[in-house]
């Protein structure tokens, strides 16, 4: 299975806010992820076809993205170039398009894969819990370390299951743990680049509303501590 054909989470769906462009990367490929006003989420190569400027420094106009350098705009969905303001009123050639990647929203996250069509390789986008979405998505944590090292550290430390069983590495990028306080937690790695990873995490069961913030803080603190330990050790 090639990593390029696998779906990875790249941000919490609710963080792809309207009129904003998320700047992220997957396997070293920079991405501009943005939500159109109609709800569509786009994941594009972070590079304007014209002169290569990062689209993430452009503007999300709601149905199109506008590049910062010469104002070329690209349509949500198709990526088709709609305007080249240096030549007003002239339709751009059909071949001028932003480069798009496969992108779906599932289980509260935006999932992207760099190559492939259809069902593709590896698990379907999502946490693989069938119809039950996670109860609470946690704060995603950026770590200056390779995904393998992060997943390994999570599998060894995140567990502390009530029955003493270790956390389970579901696959190289997914860890499931049963925590004494929080219950089942799902961790999905986003391999940003060789030495950079984002940990996306979700609780299977939602806590009572009155405890939501406290739980978010507690789990954030736990993963940040793990991040600090991984970064301090330099290797897992």
């Amino acid at each position, binding site marked *: 299975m090639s990593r390029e054909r696998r779906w990875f989470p790249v941000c919490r769906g609710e963080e792809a806010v309207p009129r904003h462009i998320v700047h992220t990367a997957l396997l070293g490929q*920079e991405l501009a992820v943005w939500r159109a006003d109609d709800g569509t989420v786009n994941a594009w190569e*972070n*590079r304007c*076809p*014209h*002169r*290569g*400027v*990062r689209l993430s*420094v452009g503007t999300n106009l709601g149905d199109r993205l506008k590049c*910062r*350098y*010469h*104002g070329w705009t690209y349509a949500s969905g198709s990526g088709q170039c709609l305007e*080249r*303001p*240096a*030549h*007003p009123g002239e339709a*751009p050639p059909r*071949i*001028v398009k932003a480069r798009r990647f496969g992108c779906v929203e599932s289980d509260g996250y935006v999932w992207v894969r760099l190559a492939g069509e259809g069902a593709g390789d590896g698990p379907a986008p999502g946490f693989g819990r069938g119809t039950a979405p996670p109860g609470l998505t946690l704060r995603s944590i950026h770590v200056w370390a390779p995904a393998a090292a992060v997943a390994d550290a999570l599998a060894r430390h995140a567990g502390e299951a009530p029955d003493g069983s270790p956390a389970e590495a579901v696959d190289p990028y997914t860890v499931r743990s049963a925590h004494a306080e929080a219950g089942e937690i799902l961790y999905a790695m986003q391999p940003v680049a060789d030495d950079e990873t984002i940990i996306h995490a979700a609780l299977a069961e939602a806590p009572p509303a009155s405890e939501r913030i406290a739980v978010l803080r507690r789990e954030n603190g736990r993963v940040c501590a793990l991040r600090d330990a991984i970064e301090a050790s330099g290797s897992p």
Partner: protein
Amino acid sequence: MAEPDPILVNDWHAVVELDFLASRGSFETVLLGVPIEIAESGEGSGEVRVSRRDTHAPLPARIRYGHVFTSIGQPNRDIVHFPECHEADRIHVTGGSIAVHVSGLRAVENFLDMGHFPFVHTDYLGVEPHTEVEPYEVTVTEEDEILATKCRFFQPLASPSADGGMMVDYEYRVARPYTVCLYKSNPIEPERWDFIVLFVQPVSEERCIAHPYLSYLAHNLDNETNRWFMQLIFAQDKPILENQLPKRLPLDPRAEVPARSDASSLSYRRWLAAQGVTYGAIPAAA
């Protein structure tokens, strides 16, 4: 990293602004990957010494256009001559050198580009909806320089002395691979041109220092005003340049998608390839 091309090695490059050198006495920088030092020879003598920091070998030094120029090879031609820079009724001032994390060739191409004015220099050199780039002419001269003429653009505040928007005429000239200048119609003396030259110092393939030098028709302008305006404008280009991917300039015409308005950029890329410039570029696959 590629070895610098002979055409660049055996040429002069601006490496420090005199006003800046005067404020600190000596300065360390890098030219074409070679670490160098520039130092004032003696208090107020106006002389400078340039040397390599790796081998300590002395390098030639010339003072021109408010900058120190040097070469890491055997210069086989003089520093480019710009007559406007010697006219007494103009204000001559360096603009404040600024380092940019991108190939110097991208910086030159940006300097040649009018289409970005409304989006990058909004309310100064351009403003929507005045975005059209009318057809202009690009030629390679007998002296093997690129010349773009009959360029026109609507500018809301073309210079610190402008009051109100106007159509501005431009001419652009690429004199050396890393040296580019522009002539711009002056609002008060329509028959003469304001002049700006950009000497780009290739630090490495992906880093450069832009050294601007301005020769403006005086008209009540002072050095300070010219300088802050130049820095304001150039610092608007900097984040754009630093967000260009890849950092080196692709010479393969299929690597990026041009429009008609990019005629000067296309000509520049072809000309670089013909001159054998690869440093700071991604050469087209053979």
